[in-house]
């Protein structure tokens, strides 16, 4: 049976087995944020830094990406020595604001296409940098962007949450989540 079909018997190695550190991932996200103009407007605030995130992976998985209201999630897949996804999720309202700042145009409503474009690019840049922390060689996919309504979180049943970073910005929630594919016990390190 493939690992895809046997999530219950799969082993979930600890996040530390992939060398992911929340401080390092936060530094990556913060640098991306700063570089695209958000920091100039004091846009990056950290809320509920997840020191306990890895302590309860099932709980984290249940809540990863679940944000109130209409939500937009952008993901990139990493395939190779590491198999998983990097997901950046936030509210539509926050995504509109983030995109307006990136375009240097906060005076008017940006288009849905621009929002999807920029959220995908943020996932690409953040995912590309997180990929450098993961075992290689691996390949980064093009980003995929999804919108959803309240309570419909992105979830991969054959993966577990290796890292979940909840961030606060302008009173809005932004999350960065790294999903790692579960491995069958026989395949584990």
């Amino acid at each position, binding site marked *: 049976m493939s690992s895809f079909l046997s999530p219950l018997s799969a082993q979930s190695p600890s996040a530390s087995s992939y060398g992911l550190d929340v401080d390092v991932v936060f530094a990556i996200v913060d*640098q*991306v944020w*700063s*570089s*695209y103009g958000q920091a100039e407007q004091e846009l990056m605030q950290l809320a509920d830094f997840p020191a306990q995130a890895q302590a309860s992976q099932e709980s984290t998985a249940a809540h990863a990406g679940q944000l109130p209201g209409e939500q937009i999630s952008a993901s990139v897949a990493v395939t190779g020595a590491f198999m998983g996804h990097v997901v950046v999720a936030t509210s539509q309202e926050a995504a509109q604001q983030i*995109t307006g700042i*990136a*375009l*240097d145009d906060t005076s008017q409503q940006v288009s849905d*296409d*621009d929002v999807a*474009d*920029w959220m*995908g*690019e943020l996932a*690409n*840049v953040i*995912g*590309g*940098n997180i*990929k*450098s922390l993961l075992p*290689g*060689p691996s390949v*980064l996919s*093009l980003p995929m962007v999804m919108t959803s309504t309240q309570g419909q979180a992105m979830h991969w049943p054959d993966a577990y949450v290796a890292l979940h970073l909840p961030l606060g910005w302008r009173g809005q929630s932004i999350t960065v989540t790294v999903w790692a594919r579960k491995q069958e016990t026989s395949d584990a390190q």
Partner: protein
Amino acid sequence: MKILVADDSKVMRQIVIRTLRQAGYSDHELVEATDGAHALTLVTSEQPDLVLSDWNMPGMSGIELLAAVRGAGQTMPFGFVTSEGSPDMRQQAASAGADFLLSKPFTAEGLREALQPILG
């Protein structure tokens, strides 16, 4: 001088162009390509003096674009602006004939440092 900016993200193309201006390259003519294949067409038709390309693009990737550009005998400077900057990718880029690889996120200073040897 003409600069071709290839990136499948329209917003990122705008950021690259804005950062070029911030880095002091505001007088250059700018041409935009939405993916590698589009960029290859524009390399031929526009004959840019510099290509700034994303790596990860649908259809034709940046590294495939570079191979095609060099394969066509085009020798203009070519730099990557990409979300990944691993030693392996830098090696690939250099071997294929790239002049530099600038990893995203990048700053105006970083862009200026990369372009100064090429554009002055």
